């Protein structure tokens, strides 16, 4: 018996006399295995959009495949705070006490806000053969649920249909963002309604009811964007398709696109706190505001 043979014999015995392990790996059977598939939770899309002025911008979107339900409150949102000649408000978007979702005042249960397929997107322009970032936005394929906010200043698009308070025979028409005099503006607006003298069909954005929004409308997705040029962003259809021929036009600065799918009167949009009111509680301490019966 030479050394090599002894070494081989030793190795063989080592295998025979190893301490038995009681832990074991259990194979997954075919039926169970078949239930698993590759779950791609991220999609990346790149596309061109022809703008209203016939120029073309390229876009890159990263989408997270996710369904989110949430009750979230935010004390203060101020986006785009800088000097902007001709406007009194300091910020493009200035919102106090923004709440997504609310608390059912009778059952004390959360009624969540639902967000589907959130995304982040960059916009590029071609500047003499050099590719430059000209904007970015954060949005969602679709949203629905209760939204409560005290809006001090809004740059953007607030999609809501106004059913004329004093003229029920007139067809509903899209609300406009207004300044305090009732003049239409989509920059640092403080009021909402039909352009005029703000004596009727015109309400302040800082006293709104809780809105039950549902963006499955022609107004496109809910998003916040920043861009350094006036830029059209593509709408997302309800099946997730990006429609490059249907754009939300945004202006330079910070911009909030807020589709609601609501048709109502301006009176019904005015927030009424307390019992029988239309402002939903969003914190359990809202009892102090009389928001629970």
């Amino acid at each position, binding site marked *: 018996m030479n050394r090599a043979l*002894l070494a081989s014999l*030793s190795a063989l*015995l*080592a295998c025979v*006399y190893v*301490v038995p392990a009681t832990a074991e790996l259990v194979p997954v059977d075919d039926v169970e295995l078949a*239930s698993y*598939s590759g*779950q*791609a*939770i*991220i*999609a*990346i*899309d*790149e596309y061109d959009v022809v703008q209203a002025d016939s120029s073309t911008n390229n876009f*890159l979107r990263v*989408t997270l*495949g996710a*369904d*989110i*339900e*949430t009750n*979230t*409150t*935010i*004390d*203060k*949102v*101020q986006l*785009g*705070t800088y*000097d902007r000649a001709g406007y009194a408000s300091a910020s*493009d978007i200035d919102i106090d006490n923004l709440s997504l*979702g609310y*608390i059912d005042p009778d059952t*004390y*249960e*959360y009624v969540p806000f639902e967000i589907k*397929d959130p995304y982040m997107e*960059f916009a590029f322009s071609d*500047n*003499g*053969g*050099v*590719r*430059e*970032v*000209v*904007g970015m936005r954060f949005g969602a394929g679709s949203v629905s649920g209760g939204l409560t906010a005290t809006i001090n200043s809004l740059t953007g698009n607030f999609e809501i249909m106004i059913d004329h308070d004093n003229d029920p025979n007139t067809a509903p028409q899209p609300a406009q963002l207004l300044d305090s005099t009732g003049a239409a503006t989509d920059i640092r607006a403080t009021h909402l309604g039909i352009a005029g003298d703000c004596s009727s069909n015109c309400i302040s954005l800082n006293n709104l009811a809780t809105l039950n929004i549902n963006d499955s409308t022609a107004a496109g997705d809910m998003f916040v964007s*920043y*861009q*350094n040029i006036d830029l059209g962003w593509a709408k997302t259809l309800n099946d997730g*398709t990006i429609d490059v021929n249907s754009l939300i036009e945004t202006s*330079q*600065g910070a911009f909030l696109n807020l589709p609601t799918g609501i048709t109502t009167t301006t009176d019904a949009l005015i927030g009424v706190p307390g019992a029988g009111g239309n402002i939903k*509680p969003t914190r*359990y*301490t809202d*009892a102090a505001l009389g928001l629970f019966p």
Partner: protein
Amino acid sequence: MKRPVALLTSFLFSAVSFAELSPMTDDAMSEVDGEGLGIVLEDYSFHAGTDINAGNSGAVFEITGIKTSDGRDVLIKTDNFFIGGKGSAEFVDNGDGTSSFVVNPTTVNIGRLNNPVEISQRDGDDIDVRAPNKGVLEIAMPDLVAINGDPVWTGHKMDPCLKAGAAECAKFSSREAVDGGYRGERFDFGLDINAQFQESIGSSNYTSDSPLTLYVKEAVFDGSYIRLWGDETATGSESASDQRNLTLANIRLNMYTPEVLIASCGANGDKCGDPVQIKHLAMDLIVGVGEIQPAMLSVTPDGNFQLEVEALPPPTAAGQPTRIGTILSDQPDASDWAATEKDFYENYYNDTIPGVKTKSNLYIGDPTIANPTFETAGGLKVGDTYLGTSKIEGLQIQYMKLTTHDIGG
């Protein structure tokens, strides 16, 4: 011959050991506090290479398996991924209206011996953990340092907490680099990333390069942590119905960077257009608050990931125990509440629960400065256009459930 025989004998007569490692109970684990590892990386730098097809060193990361929403494959290439000290990269002016992204990582220390990155076992009964009777695994970045006795980064505004020499609040223990002095513990990181898109489903051609370059300067993450524990055992005031048999978590992400640059560059990082500049980015993000409102990580039966931040418990029937203690009223009416109950909700909503934070904040620039400019307050600049400062302040997740689903073709 003696050695082989001895070897053979040792195998034949080796003792079979039945000693076993016994799991510690949660009670036993919860008595352990602060035992763990401190990690400090000194003179550290990392650079993951450049595209070999362009004649460089290689070592490019490629990510496959991602698709477009219409089902085409997307190939993600990342190169120039780096972590280093101050000045590890720069956009060098080409003199023709473009710049080139050049990476030459310097070294940095990540963590200090007196404030290292830590992996430790925490006592869940600690006031800043609030997972009673549980042993909690914590992975934490270096500590915040108390000034004037205040142990918590107030986080409600950028000043004075994030600036050198600030008083009246906590500050980061990781120091800025000093030219000719110490390296500091704040690190630069960044990467070039390029998405290439399959021409059509089944095609072997990839087109439409879509490159982005990200450069984050002197980032500091002090005070960030992830805490994990299990909840298989009902203890304390929990009833059996409270058992979730899940991994529970609390996550806090603190980050401050004086500057972030995002640009779109050509091959090899050249021909970059004007970058997006974010000057003074600060965030303090909270996901889960102790066992009052833990985050729960799980996988659904169909294989998707789920993250839930448990709903804040509502006032319930009088005397019914909940995770926050015994509720003495069945009405969410502050006038009927016992003092402890009222205190709990008011403290939660006011972010004044001792030891823990319940609200998140995000700042781009210093929003406390009136009539801000990019030079004075920082903020967001896209190309030559200043788009101001921005903030999202006092964000409180009272409930959230995120469930992923299959997307992409």
